Structures are given as C-alpha cells and as structure tokens.
C-alpha cells in the first residue's frame, strides 16, 4: 500500500508534505531522548516489516504494521513511520518520493490514532492488552486502506470503489497483522510491560531533531 509518483494531484502532494512535515516536527518534540533506542528499533522493525511477504494465491501481500508501531511508540510513531517510509522509498522504490508526504499521512495518522486508542483501552494485565493489541493492529491497516482511498479520491478516483478494492486486497494483511500484533503485545506485556507505558514528557527532556 504505497502511492506512486504522479498519481496524486500537485496540491494534495504539497499539502501532504506540509501536514506530514508539521506532524513530524510535533512527533519529534513529543519524543523523549531516553525513548530514542526504542524509537530506533521500532523504526527499523517498521522498515523491514514491509519485506515480509506472505504468498497468497497468485499474488503476495506484505506486512505494514502501522497499528503495532503506533501502539508501541505513541506520539513518536509518526516520526518513526515518516523516516521508515523515506528509506523504503529511497532504497526499495516503494512509493514515489514526491508522494512521500501523502504516504506518511496514510500510514502515520492511523498509527497515531491506534497509539491513542491502545493507551486508552489496553487495561492493566491478563489477556486484555493482547486482545486490544490485536484489534489495534487490524484497525491500523484498515484505516490505512481507508486513508489510501481518501487520498486517491483526490486524484479523481471513486472513493467507494477504491475503498472496497483496497480493503478486499488487504483483508489477509489485516487479519495477519491482528494476529502478529496480538502476539507481540501479549509478549511485551509479560516480558517488558514498561515498553508499553505512555511516556510522560517534560519539555526539557525532549529530543529535537
């Protein structure tokens, strides 16, 4: 799920860059310097996850994990996703460089929403965090597909048609990502629950990039 060069109108491309630039700045401000290693590891995981291809009939799909990234990183997720997408675009030719802003919005906004929802509903212990994590993981990709349809609508496509197609094509990813996220969150909550805590940031502690 990457938008290529020349698909979106210029206004949307520039708007995407402006909005995601602002969100990256906000996200970097929200990131505490002690969270940087976690941020780096999650960015690397997000970057590599798109290479995990799952063969499916004649075609294959790959993981996207915006939901999981959002759940683990919270507000820093946008920075992480923007950087991951930049490097994917440069090194893997996934999505065009001009559409990077729109791509970052497409994956980053769901991540932010997922992070917020996860912190709100994750609960304390038991299987609840894993279940919520799984739902969040599925929701992240679903929202990304809807964002894709919204962005493509600006390029003159029919929203409902694209949305149906994108959701149908990503249904396996949505399911697989739910399972992967549920296992990951369930594991983290048992082994290192502080990774999933929302971090309180005082402004003197923030990392400005």
């Amino acid at each position, binding site marked *: 799920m990457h938008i290529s060069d020349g698909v979106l109108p210029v206004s949307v491309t520039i708007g995407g860059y402006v909005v995601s630039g602002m969100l990256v700045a906000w996200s970097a401000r929200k990131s505490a*310097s002690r969270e940087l290693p976690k941020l*780096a590891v999650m960015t*690397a995981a997000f*970057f590599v996850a798109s290479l995990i291809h799952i063969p499916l009939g004649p075609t294959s799909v790959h993981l996207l994990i915006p939901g999981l990234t959002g759940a683990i990183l919270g507000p820093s997720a946008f920075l992480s996703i923007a950087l*991951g997408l930049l490097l994917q675009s440069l*090194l893997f030719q996934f999505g065009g460089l001009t559409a990077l802003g729109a791509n970052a919005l497409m994956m980053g906004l769901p991540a932010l929403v997922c992070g917020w929802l996860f912190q709100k509903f994750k609960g304390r212990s038991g299987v609840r965090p894993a279940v919520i994590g799984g739902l969040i993981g599925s929701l992240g990709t679903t929202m990304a597909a809807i964002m894709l349809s919204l962005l493509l609508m600006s390029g003159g496509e029919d929203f409902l048609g694209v949305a149906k197609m994108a959701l149908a094509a990503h249904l396996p990813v949505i399911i697989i990502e739910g399972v992967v996220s549920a296992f990951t969150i369930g594991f983290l909550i048992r082994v290192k629950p502080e990774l999933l805590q929302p971090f309180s940031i005082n402004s003197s502690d923030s*990392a400005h*990039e």
Partner: protein
Amino acid sequence: MRGIKQLILTGLTLGVLVLITPSAWAEEPSAESDCKAIITLLNEQNSKFSGDTRRIQREIAALRADLDKPGFKDVVAGIGYILGLFGVAAFVAARRKG
C-alpha cells in the same frame, strides 16, 4: 592447333554435360525428398530455438523482477541509516542535556 584445342575442349564439355545430365535427371526425385527432409529439420530446429528464446525471455523477465526487489544490502543499509540517524539524535540530545 588452336582449332584442334577448341574442338577437344568443346568435346570434353559436351561429354561432361552428356555424362552429367542423365545423372541429374535421375537424381531429381531424391533431391526433392532431400529438400523435404531439410525443411522438416529446419522446422524442428526453428521450433526448438523459438522455445529456447521464449524460455530465455522468461528468465530475463524474472531476473528483472528480481532486480527490482530490494536485496539484503538494501535492508542492511536501511537499518544502518535508521540506527545512525537515531544515534545522532541521541548524541545531540545528550549534548544538549549535558
């Protein structure tokens, strides 16, 4: 002298022609069958080569698709970039704090 030489030459040529012609007449049917055999052989070779070409074209297409796919180097490079950038960020943050 010259006349005799010419005569002999003409005679020889005629003789050769006379000798050759019947054999040529006699060989006609077999030459036709040879032609047919050659044509079938050529056809066989042609189809074999076109099959080979198609296979090679397919292989080239697969190779091109493989080239488009990110390789191990790209993955390692990307992870290196990410860790490096966050390392610089951490360094800057630490300096600022100190």
